[in-house]
């Protein structure tokens, strides 16, 4: 059975945030929730200071801490390794948010508009996004990236992978040694984030230089 995973090439990411915006557009996430996000990081001192963008998604760990701590069984993992949250079952205890080493889980108590100073109801685009968000998700519950499960089932790439102009993101089957992601990990010496937590994430990163 395929285990879906990401390979993110840190040499290529230059921090355009296309992935973050594409994810928000595809999944209609409200303000305060970013399933795909990018963060700058700096290290060293002048004249050898370095700056690097770190793109992030839910790591879809093989041994997810969020699934272990979930008391209601709302968190499940499918046969492809994708971790899902059932909006009807989650009670919003936020234990998974505390247990996740990667900050992949977020929650909001209500829909926060991006235009709080605007008068009247939500504009049509935000109203549409709110309606779409409420179809599969809710408020007060933990939500997370699911590797654009519906798009992948339809044979497409996750939105953040498709939108990346630098082709820094790759998606594929980690169990297939001949897949693009597996070859990249072997050839470019891919690594995982925070391996000390033993979660075995499905997202691998290629060194920046």
């Amino acid at each position, binding site marked *: 059975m395929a285990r879906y995973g990401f390979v993110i090439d*840190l040499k290529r990411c230059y921090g355009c945030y296309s992935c973050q915006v594409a994810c928000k557009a595809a999944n209609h996430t409200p303000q305060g929730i970013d399933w795909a*996000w990018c*963060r*700058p*990081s*700096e*290290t060293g001192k002048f004249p050898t200071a*370095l700056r*690097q963008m*770190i793109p*992030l998604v839910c790591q879809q760990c093989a041994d997810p*801490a969020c*699934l*272990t*701590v*979930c*008391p*209601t*069984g*709302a968190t499940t993992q499918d046969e492809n390794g994708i971790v899902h949250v059932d909006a*009807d*079952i*989650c*009670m*919003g*205890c*936020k*234990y998974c*948010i*505390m*247990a*996740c*080493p*990667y*900050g992949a*889980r*977020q*929650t909001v*108590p209500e829909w926060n508009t991006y235009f709080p100073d605007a008068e009247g109801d939500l504009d049509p685009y935000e109203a549409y996004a709110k309606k779409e968000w409420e179809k599969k998700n*809710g*408020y*007060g*519950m*933990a939500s997370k990236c699911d590797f654009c499960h519906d798009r992948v089932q339809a044979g497409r790439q996750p939105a953040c992978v498709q939108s990346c102009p630098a082709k820094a993101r790759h998606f594929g089957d980690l169990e297939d040694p001949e897949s693009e992601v597996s070859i990249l990990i072997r050839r470019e010496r891919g*690594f995982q*984030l*925070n391996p000390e*937590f033993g979660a075995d994430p499905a997202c691998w*990163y290629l*060194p*920046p230089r």
Partner: protein
Amino acid sequence: MELKAQTKWRWGLATYLFLSGLGAGAYAAGAYLDHLGEAWQTLSNIGIILGFPCVAVAGLFKLKQLGRPQAAWRAWMRPQTSWISRGSIMLMGFLGVSFIHLILVIAGADEGLRHVFGVIGGIFGVALMLYSGVLLAAARPIAFWSTAMLPLLFMLSSVLTGLMAIILIALITGEPFQGVVSNLERFIAVLLVLKTIVVIFYLQSTHRVPESRASAKLVLTGSVAPLFWFGVALLGLAIPLGLGFLDLIRAYGAEPKLVAALAAICGIAGGFFLRQVVLAAGIPAPLRAGRFEVALPII
């Protein structure tokens, strides 16, 4: 890189942890004192009677803290892996046994029957006291919580606040200070010294990783410092120790009941602030990508 503390678990959960610990501690102490004879009966009854309402109210605070309380009935679905599930089972077990025990005490039931419920309820009570620390300790990314010292600290604090609540109620209801109350107070003084040592060792043990060092810095000199120094150190430890252990005020002729009551109130408040300090200083580990690190956004 500025590491940020979590913000999702704050006053609501701190109140739940505090009240459940106080209730369980008072009940467990009361159940034990029930075996010590007639002289301790009043204190024992107070402890047993305190258990159920405190833990029940704690449960309400826990419900309030949930994002979707309508799904809370599912909380005990996964005891095989989830500490919240296990805690929910312990909570319900404790509430059931302590309620029956409360009725038995009020009805003046037979000593043997009271003792049976006391033992069962005591086991649930100890489990509930330990569980609150274990729950936090299981969140591995937050190194400030992920230590075996935290369940010990919370258990000690629960026993202390439970005993102090018993003393406070006893003094308010007219129980004389000399005798069992003053004996209990001496025991509390020993526990306070132990708690002080545990707090010092707990903070000292945070040198392991940068995020727990950042938590300790937040507690000792940062934004959580006023809560820690005033709430935990002064109210929770220094004042009860100073008033009870050093006996200074009594030496100048002050009313011992007032002094003991003040020490109990301060100690109980200190127990609450301890939970809030621990929660407020929980900083998760940064994401580490080779030589680069990224602080998690506020969670």
